[in-house]
């Protein structure tokens, strides 16, 4: 039941995954690593099975969109948590917009089912192997992925609300 410090976690990650994890940071005390989408499921599995870390709880996962990062526009962020050691880890993957396919985590975590459906619904990230990848919160007839940055929130054709007046 010993708590693991961030340094021990980073060391463990490096010796376990080596070059597969990169861009290791600690923003606000939460270890954040980036990996590739080929590695993500083996990595989650290895973290799940690791006898020291025991990261067996998927806290949350969500999609992200950075349209300016060419070739790496879309991303998925996983937050895993080790309840035994009380330490969290954030894993990110990035991939191009026109090839938004990620292997599914539903075989490992049942809870990933709806989270992946949500990411598909809002960002159009296709999870390969997902049992039932359909929209979850939006209507099924919707043709766009509304959380992507190319869909601004307010109607841009309105002339009665000029943005410079509203400090946005």
């Amino acid at each position, binding site marked *: 039941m010993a708590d693991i410090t961030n340094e021990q976690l980073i060391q463990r990650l490096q010796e376990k995954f080596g070059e597969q994890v990169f861009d290791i940071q600690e*923003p*606000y005390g*939460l270890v*954040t690593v980036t990996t590739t989408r080929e590695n993500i499921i083996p990595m989650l599995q290895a973290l799940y099975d690791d006898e020291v870390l025991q990261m*067996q*709880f*998927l*806290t*949350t996962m*969500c999609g*992200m*969109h950075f349209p300016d990062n060419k070739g790496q526009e879309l991303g998925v*962020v996983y*937050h895993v948590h080790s*309840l035994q050691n*009380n330490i*969290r880890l*954030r894993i990110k993957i990035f991939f191009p917009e026109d090839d938004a396919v990620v292997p599914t985590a539903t075989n490992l*975590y*049942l*809870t990933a*089912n*709806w*989270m992946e459906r*949500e990411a598909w619904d*809002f960002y159009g990230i296709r999870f390969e192997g997902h049992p039932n990848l359909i929209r*979850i*919160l*939006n*209507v099924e007839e919707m043709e766009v992925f*509304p*959380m992507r940055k190319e869909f*601004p*929130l*307010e109607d841009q054709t309105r002339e009665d609300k000029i943005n410079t007046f*509203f*400090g*946005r």
Partner: protein
Amino acid sequence: MELAKQNTQIVTPDSYMQELTTLNLGPTHPATHGIFQNILKMDGEKIVSGVPTIGYIHRAFEKIAERRNFYQITPLTDRMNYCSSPINNMGWWMTVEKLLGVTVPKRAEYIRVIVMELARIADHLICNSILGVDTGAFSGFLYVFQEREKIYEIYEEICGARLTTNMGRVGGMERDLSPVAIQKIRDFLRDFPKVMTEFETMFNRNRIFVDRVEGVGPITAEKALNYGFTGPNLRAAGVDYDVRVMNPYSSYQDFDFEVPVGTKGDTYDRFMVRNEEIWQSLRIIQQAMDNLPEGPFHADAPEFYLPPKQEVYRNMEALIYHFKIVMGEIDAPAGEVYHSVEGGNGELGFYLVSDGGRTPYRLHFRRPCFIYYQAYPEMVVGTQLSDAIVILSSMNVIAGELDA
């Protein structure tokens, strides 16, 4: 007993009754306590499969938040779990404070603990008393709702609102606890245990109630963890995970309280865990009231905390800050924060990515309901329709949080 056995028998394949009935439970069914639909396949009264459809009150909070200033996002969090909106508000402020690096004074943290625990009591009271209604006991519901009304009066005294509270500010509270608010909290602490004892006397060992809920909708600890359960539902399954203990926030480490756990994870355990948590919340409020520190009720964060109105009229800096805050012209530092609080029904997380602008670049809410409601089809398969209603209300699924 013989009759019950007959009722659960599946009709034989050659029977003319082999066709299953499709039943739409919801979206606006009075027993679902919210707008969500379940398409159930029924064999008589027995449920063969269930498909939940959600999103009927989806309001795109995550998208709206990308165009709003930080202080304009609290009203959105109110409308997620509207049974315990102060917890959502405080969770959001703590996320922002973490991003900005603001240190909150002790008094503000204690006030926050008091309102969060009051909100937890209100949330659990709603869940448990509605569970009583669903099993046919209406009077318990009316009885504890009087006390819930008193909690709402305390909110009113603290922030002016009742249901969607929009309470607190960056760095603390918008005003100090008034003498009336303190008196109302003390009255509540004095009167509520009596009511709660009667409520427990009415249900805990009531034969009719126990028969309806014991062994209904059980879930194992492994399964619950795999499904991402948190909060009372996970603790009912026997896992003592509580964010207040694991990652204390807002001075929760100062208080002495216990984390109740169940064993089987069935409806009765969920009910009992919630009841016990109400007692523990009372303990926390009592300790916080007794040891309420003196001092300021908000942090010294002039760029994010509105200056007093008198200052705005007389003081140049105050006027500038007032203008900048109201017009939302202050940039937040770039960075990414995950902060979670123990909400009314589980770990309520905020994942905030800031690119250094005035609004969040990306804000993701970890809504506990959304995550554990996935287990519902599995929990209801093989049970009777009336059990499905009981399981649903014991899981405390709030439609506003489910759909965000």
